[in-house]
């Protein structure tokens, strides 16, 4: 087994094909581990990891914490709302204070794009980006690709459409990088106002008609409309968005083939996806959550093995 080519996981764009393959193969082993009667291994018992969440999160935070605990790492949690950040402390000061308590690795979510890259240049610890603004969310993209691989056998050659709020989505950008690196075809679909200009420069197709997009794809990754990041209105009403870009069972049944439905969560049931679709056999939403723990264990394990004693 080779090593990762990077010392931090800042974004998918810094990974190559072999890195992704190595992460998936390692995750296969951890997936077996988390399905054992006793789901813990002692590999990281001398590693301390700080989870710094400067932005709200449920799934990602729980998933990272569980992954760290399954690997026997010591874990400290920090959320910005209850910290001295509110008193005016800078990011580097906050992190350096935490690192002076002998922390080896930092998992960070931050509202500003590039925060994890900035941090990796200024502090001496392994950094994992758990989402930086609308930039990247690498572990989500890895678990999405891993789930496609699990369901369809391979990512290469598959057609994946990412539907919804592409403009504000770090999941979309990381997924585009991950899928393209592995040789999948990618399309984005949504209202024109929510698709960034020049996104076709990344080598993705752009489609504004959902039915056409679904007819083309093998997998549809449905994104949430990120109202909290919208200062102005990007579409007339939620109702109109749902009519044009919401997936329901009727629409799925009218397609020529069965496609796989994914969602990174949290779901707004009845907006981008109806309940019957979310709970159907075509949806792999809960598999994605389970795979998230295995993928994060793999990433943490592989990065930890590069921390010198």
């Amino acid at each position, binding site marked *: *087994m*080779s*090593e990762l080519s990077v010392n931090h996981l800042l974004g998918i764009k810094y990974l190559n094909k072999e890195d992704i393959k190595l992460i998936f*193969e*390692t995750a*296969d*082993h951890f997936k*077996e*581990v988390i399905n*054992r*009667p*006793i*789901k*813990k*291994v*002692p*590999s*990281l018992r*001398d590693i301390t990891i700080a989870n710094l969440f400067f932005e709200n999160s449920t799934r990602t935070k729980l998933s990272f914490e569980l992954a760290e605990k399954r*690997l026997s790492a010591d874990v400290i949690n920090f959320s910005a709302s209850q910290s001295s950040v509110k008193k005016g402390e800078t990011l580097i000061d906050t992190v350096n204070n935490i690192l002076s308590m002998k922390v080896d690795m930092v998992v960070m979510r931050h509202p500003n794009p590039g925060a994890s890259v900035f941090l990796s240049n200024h502090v001496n610890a392994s950094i994992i980006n758990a989402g930086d603004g609308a930039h990247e969310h690498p572990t989500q993209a890895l678990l999405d690709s891993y789930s496609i691989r699990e369901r369809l056998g391979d990512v290469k050659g598959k057609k994946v459409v990412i539907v919804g709020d592409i403009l504000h989505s770090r999941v979309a950008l990381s997924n585009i990088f991950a899928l393209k690196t592995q040789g999948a075809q990618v399309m984005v679909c949504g209202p024109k106002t929510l698709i960034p200009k020049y996104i076709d420069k990344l080598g993705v197709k752009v489609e504004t008609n959902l039915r056409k997009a679904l007819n083309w794809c093998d997998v549809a990754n449905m994104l949430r409309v990120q109202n909290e990041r919208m200062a102005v209105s990007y579409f007339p009403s939620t109702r109109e968005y749902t009519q044009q870009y919401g997936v329901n069972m009727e629409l799925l049944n009218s397609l020529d083939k069965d496609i796989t439905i994914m969602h990174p969560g949290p779901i707004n049931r009845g907006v981008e996806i109806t309940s019957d679709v979310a709970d159907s056999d075509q949806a792999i939403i809960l598999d994605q959550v389970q795979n998230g723990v295995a993928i994060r264990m793999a990433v943490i*394990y592989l990065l*930890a*093995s590069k*921390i*010198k*004693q």
Partner: protein
Amino acid sequence: MSQKVLLNAKEVNIILHRLACQLIENHNDFTNTVLIGLQPRGRYMANRLAQMLKEEYKIKNLQLGHLDITFFRDDFRRSDKPLEANTTEINFLVENKKIVFIDDVLYTGRSIRAALTAIQSFGRPNEIELLTLIDRRFSRHLPIQPNYKGRQVDAINEEKVIVHWQEEQGEDAVYLINK
């Protein structure tokens, strides 16, 4: 680098038969015993013994598993080479079972220490025994000894004992290599 044959195919075969008979002597019809091959190198030997017990000694319902110990090793971040994981295939609980660990070479005993921890993820066994083809005595770092051994070898640290299996290298043989 010099190389010496410690055991040839015929000798390996005789030893495997002897070990199979010793197992039968202690475990009778294997109703409460499971064989666990330690990945990566113990897998071939465990498969071979299991096949022999089933086909030649007519043992029915023999349970065989393979255990990977990578995540339980004590040299994570201490070894020069990255640790390579293998698959674990244990499709049964080991609660109250008698386990026989099977590996090709017993050297420092550290792998067995890791295996003793790793197997606890699958329940609390009643008893664990160790079977190895080669026992490199006088080189143990831990107080671990085999219950069944094929051949005892006195080798110095600079020497390496390598086991070849038909399934992997195309021949059954044990070599002593002087680096």
